[in-house]
């Protein structure tokens, strides 16, 4: 059940949305500020590249602003924004995966360059590599369910697919992740 605090914050958000729909830029700026970290996290996990993730966040807000008048508040703004971001991410990840595949085929990708800021530790590298073994939809399901902690039905709504499919995708994703992480981080992942 929704708490008073959650309801108040929803009302404040809706007020900002209405102002932004009427052309108030400060209101939309405020909505961007409140949601960009969450969308960045989603995009970064999906694309594992900082620039691509930043670009995706910007593109998400751009598309959202252009169709803001269509937003009627049936779902939360964050869910709506993350639905937009998800579509952009899946499309970009597909292109990226083809490129990475070509790189690896010719040996360019066997020793990927790691941005010092990103590759701070073995854990980060392991999770990034493990997620690369997933298909675009498996990866998105994994990110939305495990990292963003959306429910199965919310994930299904965001991705526009059936709940049963989400369960199957998550099952496959976890199986692949577990297999990779057992080899990459045996100390942490072996019981």
């Amino acid at each position: 059940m929704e708490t008073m605090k959650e309801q108040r914050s929803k009302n404040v958000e809706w007020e900002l949305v209405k102002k932004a729909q009427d052309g108030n830029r400060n209101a939309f700026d405020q909505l961007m500020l409140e949601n960009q970290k969450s969308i960045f996290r989603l995009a970064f996990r999906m694309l594992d590249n900082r620039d691509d993730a930043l670009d995706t966040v910007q593109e998400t807000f751009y598309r959202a602003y252009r169709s803001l008048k269509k937003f009627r508040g049936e779902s939360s703004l964050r869910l709506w924004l993350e639905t937009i971001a998800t579509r952009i991410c899946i499309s970009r990840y597909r292109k990226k995966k083809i490129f990475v595949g070509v790189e690896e085929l010719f040996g360019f990708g066997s020793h990927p360059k790691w941005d010092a800021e990103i590759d701070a530790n073995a854990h980060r590298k392991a999770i990034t590599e493990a997620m690369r073994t997933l298909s675009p939809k498996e990866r998105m399901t994994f990110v939305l369910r495990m990292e963003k902690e959306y429910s199965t039905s919310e994930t299904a709504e965001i991705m526009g697919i059936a709940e049963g499919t989400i369960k199957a995708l998550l099952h496959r994703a976890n199986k692949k992740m577990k297999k990779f992480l057992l080899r990459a981080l045996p100390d942490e992942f072996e019981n």
Partner: protein
Amino acid sequence: MLDTYDKKIKDLLDSTEPVLTSRESDEIRRGMWLKMRRHRTTVKVRAVLVPSALLLLIAFVALNPFGNGQITESELFFFSDSDIWEKAGDIPQDELIYGMLGTEIDSIANVYLEETEIEDAISLLSEDEQEEFLIALAKEI
């Protein structure tokens, strides 16, 4: 309840959470508004240029001197503006729209733009918008 694997994955995800810096956050917002401004300039330029082209098209379709035959692009400029405006005023609106829908608007609009004084339309834009429009135009060319 989370099983051991779920908990370990959750810990791993939390410990490797990507962080957005305040500089990046500012850049996202700045970049987004810049993109919006570019989009608006494009829309505004179209709004300035295309209606003129469409009006000319409507009038031309209504005045088609070749009856039901096809109108070629070069034939579009057979008439003086004053002829077109004068005669277009006599045509019922639904007939004009009907004629317009059955025609390739883009190609005729392009021909119109090639012949018309773009400077007049551009002068209606602000200095920033003019600059952006000219950059966009240069890229197109």
